[in-house]
């Protein structure tokens, strides 16, 4: 994509996993919002243990391919650069992780319904790959009509300096050429960042966040980003750690 005045270091590349045979799709506004990035569409079908992947592929391969090609066409229609892959699996997470690594994507989309996209929120809760985040946000916001809010969340008694992290992210975004009037910042102290983010998600149209490290909570309840995607009303873009 032409990035005009932007100085993007690496063009962002997004993985969009779609449970294609369940009729999952991507709304037109989201397609238009994501089209500036390179997109890898992964149509997957998560099978019960009783069904061999080969058996399902024999029966559903064509149907899956048609459905994913339709979605790819809508990205091409919006001027996007898109690749497609189809996978039959018993383990959705394993497949998504594998493809994300193989395609070395910047981030991946956890879809949720969304209308017009104007406001993007970036909750910052700890270590995040700011370069990748900035590449992604600056690219997606290049048409100038959308705004991003950088929201630092510190937990009480936390060593994490939310203020500094937000400031650093804002500077990096400016370096990438995003005009200052498109960026706003705030910082708050949170008891439970995941819940706070879910609660505020209705004020925004898209959430962009880091994947968060491994931890006890993550292994019990799933990644914070996945929990947020489940609770929030907005789609979540997860920036992968390198």
């Amino acid at each position, binding site marked *: 994509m032409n990035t005009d005045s932007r100085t993007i270091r690496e063009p962002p590349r997004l993985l969009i996993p779609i449970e294609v045979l369940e009729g999952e799709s991507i709304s037109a506004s989201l397609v238009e919002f994501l089209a500036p990035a390179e997109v890898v569409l992964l149509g997957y079908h998560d099978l019960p243990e009783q*069904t061999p992947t080969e058996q399902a592929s024999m029966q559903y391969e064509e149907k899956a391919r048609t459905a994913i090609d339709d979605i790819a066409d809508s990205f091409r229609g919006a001027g996007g650069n898109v690749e497609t892959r189809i996978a039959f699996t018993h383990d959705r997470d394993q497949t998504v992780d594998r493809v994300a690594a193989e395609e070395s994507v910047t981030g991946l989309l956890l879809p949720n319904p969304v209308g017009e996209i104007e406001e993007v929120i970036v909750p910052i809760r700890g270590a995040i790959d700011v370069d990748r985040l900035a590449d992604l946000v600056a690219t997606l916001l290049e048409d100038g009509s959308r705004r991003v809010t950088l929201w630092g969340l510190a937990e009480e008694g936390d060593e994490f300096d939310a203020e500094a992290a937000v400031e650093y992210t804002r500077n990096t975004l400016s370096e990438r050429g995003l005009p200052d009037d498109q960026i706003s910042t705030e910082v708050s102290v949170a008891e439970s960042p995941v819940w706070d983010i879910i609660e505020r998600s209705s004020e925004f149209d898209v959430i962009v966040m880091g994947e968060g490290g491994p931890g006890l909570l993550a292994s019990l309840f799933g990644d914070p980003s996945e929990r947020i995607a489940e609770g929030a009303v907005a789609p979540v873009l997860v920036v992968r750690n390198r």
Partner: protein
Amino acid sequence: MGTNDEAGGQNRAGDEPEEASTSGDGETTVTEEGSELERSIGLTGGLSIGIGTMIGAGIFVFPGLAAGDAGPAAAASFAIGAVIALLVALPASELATAMPKSGGGYYYISRALGTLPGAVVGISIWLGLVFATAFYLVSFGSYAAALLSEAGVDVAGLPIVGTLALLFGVVLTVVNLVGTENAAKLQNYVVGLLLTILVVFLSYGGLDVLGVFGSESTPEQFLPFGVMPVFTTAALVFTSYLGFAQVATVAGDIKDPGRNLPLAMVGSVLTVAVLYVATIFVATSAFGSGRLATFGETAMVEVARALVGDAGAMAILLGGLLATVSSANASVLSTSRAVFAVSKDALLPTIASRVNLQYGTPHIALSMAGGPVLVLVAFGRVEVLAEVASFLHLVMYGLMCVALIAMRRDEPEWYDPDFQVPAHRAVAGTGAVASFGLIAFMQRESQIIGVAIMIAAAGWYKYYAGDVRLKGAL
């Protein structure tokens, strides 16, 4: 792919074998159209399928029956079974790493030896697994009935074993038809729990009978009935070793198959073999084989009661329930995959491999597993069910060994196994002779049923799919 023989021909319904030539690596298989098929079972999962299928029978069902037939030498019967299983597991591992596809033994035999042996094995292994599942379910019934009577429910005079087995067979079939997400993970924990119960119990029991805790028990004569019963008992208890080849039926789902398939197959045989021999040793030492035999299928419960008290009896009851359930469930799943592999090659109507739209499960293949099982459960004779299951599996095992020798001789271009059997002629040759040999020691009735099934399978092939060619097709 670079073979001269392509799959071809038509069956009566006009279907041809589906040629799904695929490529891929340790993580995925890639179909001709470029779709990726994720491999999602690791080494633990593979071992758990193998051990989970096998352990139910050998520990929780056979000790009483086997000791009654062969005395303390039943331990030798289990050892003979282990040697045969290993002699087959090695060639099966090589074939599986060369052809890591769903279908297991049927697939290797049809590609190496041709369509007729393939069809006979494919259809009889479907029924062999049906017999095995019925056997596990009847055993489950015995344990469930024992649990009821332990709980004080008076079940004397009622056909409770068969009823419970039938009920549970229906439940199992329905659960599989609806489809499960995390049953495999659950199975891993169940197998882990079983192994823990057994290792604790056998260590304690072993020390006890060696006289560490109390008076040493009087050793019984090792061969009270002579040598012959050792072999007939080996033929009977071989059902305890049928699980390792089930790992190969899910080969298409195993991660890094070149490494994990051989490890899972050989590892699960070795694990259960050690436990079986130790169990027989402890059981016959605790009671003497004559008394042990009077307890029948749930003899281990009485052994545990004598050695550890009521808590031990409860642990073994629980273990028996879990083990027979996990064996039955693993076998239903393998059956459906075996049916799929055969119907994909147009040897059975292709409708059998259809996937249900609502639940996403292969409902017809699963019904072809569950339905006949219920009929056999009603028939209910444990020893015949077990022997027919072993008979049909042993035919496949023997032919797998022959298939290995044929593959090594022909060396088709695509044949490139990651794991190679050392001294393959000796290993596979002995494996084949031993597999076929063991059949000779079975009861006449089981042999007749087994042969009848194979003849019927050959007849079906001639009638339905006589033109289908599979040899050499990959």
